[in-house]
């Protein structure tokens, strides 16, 4: 492990200054084209995930370019704020970076008599970021758990506190890891806790940040930092570490192909929830917004925001459930 990571680190460092282009993600050509219709007006308000905040804003901008007088307001303070807003009717859309919990859905059902509906709008590889000078090539999920969790439910018997604990040498060996994470209203926090830490508890030393971008900025200015947030927030100052499912397994890079295939262990869908009465069609503004988001034009925005677009079969499936045609 030690020798291997050093070797890989060497390769990474050597290529890093010369790397010409990051991988660009392509749209699924089978995605439907969005066709403008007439007579769409009204107002759309979205309250929810801040991971999806920029994405919702990009969609809103695109949608507004087509339907100038649809009023749009976007608010994003964490996935946890979406279900209450949908229940209270203060928002038409509730973007969430994790699936809705059963208790939240029940709360909604209690008021309306049916469950909220979700569409899958994008794919995100939840990335573990380190400073750009950090040579670490790969971490296993168990190591990630031992780094961030104090309960270590994934079964690693030893706590990981310093970079030396995962076999790094030189100036890194004695330096403690400085941990960055999200606040508890965030869906990223919830998803990471569930998938990477088997619902264990975060260490008290994790610095909880108010936004995913703040996590990345924290890591960028702290050479010995490690943190997690959506791949869309990657900058030139940080690097996403490859993740393997178990120690010794193959290391999987956080990229589109691995996220689609499911090889990357902590990839997830980004959802948008809304209130749809199963016995009534959606009003035009919402229906068109949904169609726009799932179209080629909408998925272009996903790429623009650094996430991975959904594929055509997924879109068709979601649209069929919603009873919408393109």
């Amino acid at each position, binding site marked *: 492990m030690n020798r291997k990571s050093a070797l890989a*680190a*060497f390769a990474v*460092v*050597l290529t*890093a*200054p*010369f790397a*010409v*282009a*990051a*991988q*660009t*993600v392509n749209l699924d050509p089978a995605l439907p084209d969005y066709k403008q219709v*007439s*007579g769409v*007006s*009204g*107002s759309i*308000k979205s309250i929810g995930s*801040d991971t999806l*905040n*920029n*994405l919702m*804003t*990009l969609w809103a*901008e695109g949608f507004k370019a087509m339907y*100038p*007088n649809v*009023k*749009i*307001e*976007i*608010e*994003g*303070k964490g996935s946890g704020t979406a279900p209450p807003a949908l229940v209270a*009717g*203060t928002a*038409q859309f509730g973007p969430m970076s994790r699936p809705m919990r059963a208790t939240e859905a029940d709360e909604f059902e209690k008021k309306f008599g049916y469950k909220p509906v979700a569409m899958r709008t994008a794919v995100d590889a939840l990335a573990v970021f380190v400073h*750009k*000078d950090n*040579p670490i090539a790969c971490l296993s999920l168990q190591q990630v758990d031992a780094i961030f969790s104090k309960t270590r439910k994934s079964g690693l018997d030893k706590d990981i506190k310093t970079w030396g604990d995962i076999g790094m040498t*030189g*100036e890194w060996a004695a330096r403690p890891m400085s941990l960055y994470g999200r606040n508890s209203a965030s869906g990223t926090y919830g998803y990471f806790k569930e998938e990477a830490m088997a619902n264990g508890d975060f260490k008290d030393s994790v610095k909880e940040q*108010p*936004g*995913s*971008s*703040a996590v*990345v*900025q924290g890591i*960028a200015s702290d050479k010995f930092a490690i943190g997690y947030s959506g791949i*869309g*927030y*990657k*900058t*030139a*100052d940080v690097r996403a570490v490859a993740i393997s499912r178990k120690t010794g397994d193959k290391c999987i890079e956080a990229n589109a192909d691995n996220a689609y295939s499911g090889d990357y262990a902590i990839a997830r869908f980004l959802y948008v929830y809304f209130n749809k009465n199963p016995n009534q069609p959606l009003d035009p503004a919402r229906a068109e917004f949904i169609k726009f988001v799932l179209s080629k034009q909408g998925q272009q925005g996903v790429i*623009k*925001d*650094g996430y991975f677009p959904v594929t055509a079969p997924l879109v068709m499936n979601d649209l069929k459930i919603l009873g919408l045609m393109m």
Partner: protein
Amino acid sequence: MPPDSGHTFTTSGAARATSRPTDLRARGEPFLWGLGGALAFGVMMVAGLLLLVLWNGFATFYPRPIHVVTLVNGDVIAGEPTRTEDFRPPATEVAALPAAVRAGIETNLGFADRTLYRTGNFDLYGDDFRWITDYAVARVATPPDLYLFERLEWGAFIGRIKSVDLAGATFYAGGIPLDRLVAAHDEARRRWRQIREIEHDEIGRVNQQIESERLALRKVELRSGGPATDYADAARRTDARVVTLTGEYEGLAARAAALKAENARYTITLTEIGGREKSQNLADIVRFYPANDLSVLARLGVYFSRWGEFLTAEPREANTEGGVLPAIFGTFAMTLLMVVAVAPFGVMTALYLREYARQGRLVSIVRISVNNLAGVPSIVYGVFGLGFFAYIVGGTIDQVFFPERLPNPTFGTGGLLWSALTLALLTVPVVIVATEEALAAVPRSMREGSLACGASKWQTIHRIVLPRAMPGIMTGLILAMARGAGEVAPLMLVGVVKLAPELPIDGIFPYIHFERSFMHLGFHIYDVGFQSRNSEAGKPMVFVTTLLLIALVALMNATAIVVRNRLKRKFVGGQF
């Protein structure tokens, strides 16, 4: 310099003892130095912060040169150098370097430099910033034919012009008539603004009318409790109106479509430094300039045109580009509304407390409570505003006045009015305290004189006391305004949102929309700083927005101070 305040102490101290330290302490000298030092420290911190914001804010929009960097391995990169830092390259890498470079790093104690380039072209590269290690660079050039294009989407493009298609006439690199290109670009941009005007204002008006017809019908339906005859009549009338309006809409849409089709005939093909091409409508380019071939005057032109866009345009690309007009407007409108709400409340409370109430235990308790209110964390006000104003008051208003819009809330959610009221609550203690002080400072002799002349108590307050206290009251309002304009935390709960391009005041009845959510400069800073996709690209925007917020607060304060000074001047020599 220390004044002579300590003289009496020195003489008596010198007579009693000769020990110097006691002397100094007695004279208060160290204390004085401490005071001066604290003041200097405070001024330095404020000045430093201001300088940082000013420098970064003002420098952001100045166009930078574009470097073409050829790397040792043959790769070529074009970009604006953004910042440089030193780092310690890993030993494995240093070992692989040529001896001369290695020696250079060794004399530098193992450190090497690297530069962050903004390469743009996010749609082609998948990233827009890149670190280049200095020793990996073979040479740097600044060719004059490189352009920077600011686009409506995908951010900047850095590259060369390959060809231009101006309504059928195609020109290729080398033979592009620049003046014609610039003229065509201006034309295309003008058409683009026209399209936006049609879409935003005219189609907006039509859509608004259709929506209000729909709501009016719903109201009839709610009143008649289902399909009755008057409902059927109303429905027929509404349908007829909607048909005419839809016709109007289609006419406008056709006009916009024609302009769009015209714009599609003007295209430009760009090549990035690696040779990949990208075709673009001219209308989708905000501005372009040859970054390495600009006179100082042209640079200033770009600089001010960027400022103009920033101050007057709507945000684009999830708030990281374009302007902040809605945020400026929202901040301004909310602060004014807050002052309108807080001034009468604060002044009346203070008047009663100071002039009418019998000074006793109860009034003391009230005063203590008011003073304590000033210490309550602002987020608590936010929670109160959301619960009381938005949910209880707003929810009731919705049920009584806007039942046809339910379940979509009108006033039952955060909005301009609730934000202003919440901030008014937050700042009312400041106004009360300041007003009380000002009232207390009006000389007793003036009141007694007025009363002796036969004026009633209210006449005395109205004609004598209040005018004299006005400058003090204004000071209180200025403090309240400064506090309110800079407050963000409670607003996040009661109406400030990331994106709300609709201004709260516009040309559609009832002109001021108290119920609308709005954007705020303070929240914009937070949003762009901590939430934007690329924090690197967002940083300059944070500084510029901060600069703007400071300027706006300073401007509002300055106006209030001018008004106060006028009032003061009015009463100079007005003593009995």
